[in-house]
């Protein structure tokens, strides 16, 4: 067997060539990953601080030559004095309304979706309700291209008078993300050893009690991940939002599309709104971060 390491007994630092190479490789990989994932983000931030003439300028500059806050200001005060990006844009209303709408529609839809999905996933995993067919049936709802489903849905919604209402969008969002809520939570529930629940049942707990006091806490990390994902999907959804809103309940992505002006796309304000729009998601992610990664590592084999 090969012996590695220094002969000096008692040295506090033992030189280990193999580990050093691993260390370098690992950090190289981490840095490469960071570069790949952060560059477009940095570019987005950079554009959001650039005046119009620099949006597509060549040679491109990472740091804006004449940095400006116009792109952010214009989101909230569209009427700006001449000579600013806002003056050239002048096509939008303040983003506040769409933010308020999104803040109502998305959390409610996400909540409904995750709750329904979780309950159903529990039924499917533990009791095989609907057999193996059901989860697949639910999944098919996600396979339908929105472009084909929008018009029939529109006809139906017209009859229900749900067009351009928050409830209309909430139902659509909750319904179309349900498949994910079901499937993701299902994966996590399957990770809960059954004997944990058995023990509670033997102690005489009702099935509801087992569900909410035993299983739920164990999968809360998975639920957090699911919630975040569903929230993101709903928060960024564009096509349904565009089709099913007109004035009253437009959402942030629809607002984002409004930054198309007389002289092309307004990349600056779009970038700025992109950055601002990501803040709620980031905040949510931050709030549930501790559940995200460690949450459902409840020590599957520990009692």
């Amino acid at each position: 067997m090969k012996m590695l390491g220094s002969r000096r007994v008692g040295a506090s630092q033992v030189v280990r060539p193999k580990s050093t190479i691993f260390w370098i490789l690992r950090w190289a990989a981490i840095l490469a990953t960071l570069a790949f994932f952060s560059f477009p983000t940095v570019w987005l931030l950079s554009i959001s601080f650039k005046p119009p003439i620099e949006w597509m300028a060549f040679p491109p500059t990472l740091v804006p030559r004449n940095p400006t806050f116009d792109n952010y200001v214009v989101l909230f005060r569209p009427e700006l004095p001449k000579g600013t990006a806002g003056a050239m844009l002048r096509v939008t209303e303040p983003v506040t309304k769409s933010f308020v709408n999104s803040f109502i529609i998305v959390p409610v839809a996400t909540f409904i979706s995750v709750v329904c999905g979780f309950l159903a996933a529990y039924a499917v995993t533990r009791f095989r309700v609907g057999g193996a067919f059901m989860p697949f049936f639910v999944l098919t709802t996600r396979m339908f291209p929105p472009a084909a489903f929008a018009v029939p849905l529109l006809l139906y919604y017209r009859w229900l008078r749900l067009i351009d209402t928050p409830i209309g969008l909430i139902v659509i969002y909750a319904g179309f993300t349900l498949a994910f809520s079901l499937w993701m939570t299902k994966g996590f529930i399957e990770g809960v050893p059954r004997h944990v629940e058995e023990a509670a049942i033997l102690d005489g707990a009702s099935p509801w009690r087992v569900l909410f006091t035993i299983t739920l806490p164990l999968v809360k990390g998975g639920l957090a991940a699911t919630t975040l994902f569903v929230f993101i999907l709903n928060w960024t959804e564009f096509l349904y939002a565009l089709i099913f809103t007109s004035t009253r309940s437009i959402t942030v992505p629809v607002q984002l599309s409004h930054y198309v002006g007389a002289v092309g796309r307004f990349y600056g304000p779009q970038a700025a709104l992109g950055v601002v729009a990501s803040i709620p998601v980031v905040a949510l992610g931050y709030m549930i971060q501790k559940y995200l990664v460690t949450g459902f590592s409840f020590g599957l084999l520990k009692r």
Partner: protein
Amino acid sequence: MENKLGPERNVLLSLKGVHKEFNGFVAVNRIDLDVYEGEFLCFLGPSGCGKTTTLRMIAGLETPTDGEIYLKGQRITHMPPQQRNIGFVFQNYALFWHMTVYDNLAFGLRIRRLSPKEIDRRIREVAERFELTDVLRKKATYLDLSSMQRVALARAILIEPYLLLLDEPLNNIRPGLRELMRADLKRMQRDLGCTMIYVTHDQEEAMTLGDRILVMNEGRVEQIGSPLEIYQQPVNLFVAGFIGRPPMNLIPVQYEVTAEQAWVVWKGYRWSVNSVKEQVEKSKPERGLVLGIRPEHVRLSPEGLGIPALVEVVQPLGRKDILVLKIEDTLLQAVVYGGAKVREGAIIWVEVPLRDAHLFSADTGRAVAHGIG
């Protein structure tokens, strides 16, 4: 530490100045240890004393900050665990829960590229011994804890390790079953004749299982020895206080020398320590001594003889009672036979037989003498 089991046995594993720090926290403090072939060694100590870390370093799951580890004379300090051929049974068993019991058992053998036939033969054999034959096809998650423990043990043994390490494997098991499994383990070790290191914080377990016990505290080895040695000759106050239930009574005493006579003095009572005067003198007794007496050695004496004490509490244990006695402001525990019929609130007379007492230096905590007179 000297080899109490005799020089004729081979050293299998030895730790030389093994040291482990985690971000400045010393988990294991320069341990030296030899483990002999075929012995059952228990690591005993309160939680966080570094016993598990030591075990993990032996297995290669942690790398020592300093020091060296030798297995069969080969230095393995930095050898990856895969190459050490040391079995490890985890506290939570770490069964591969997506696999059947059979696959769990076969895992190490398949890695070693044994033929399926040979694997099957060995598994059948071991399953038989561990009474696992019926559950071989079950998924590991569906086992009861006792079976899980046996699977974990069987899995570790199947790779025919030089050394088997067990990390508190009986921790999760309810009392009752625990005693049975303990006995099982001991029998099995004897049958297989393999070398085991067993980590526990339960002294009863250590006393019943270990050929030798290593008592650890705050990363240091306090004492290594056979259970009896540890019980009878604790090397310091920690071991003395840690081993034995209820714990040893430790009474600070003064040391006096009058006309060739050496005494320890406590509340006006004095005991002659002439027989161990030499040892006592060496330990700088002027800074104080501690007299240790195990509760089971405290004896009731006829009224008027010995030391009068107030009975504060009587804990009946059936055949035995544990008494909490108050002598002036000092509490003393004593174990007496249940037949003594002592009532709470009564005054009784007790005797501290020096022959069973221990003397420790109050300054260093080290033992000065065991059994006086």
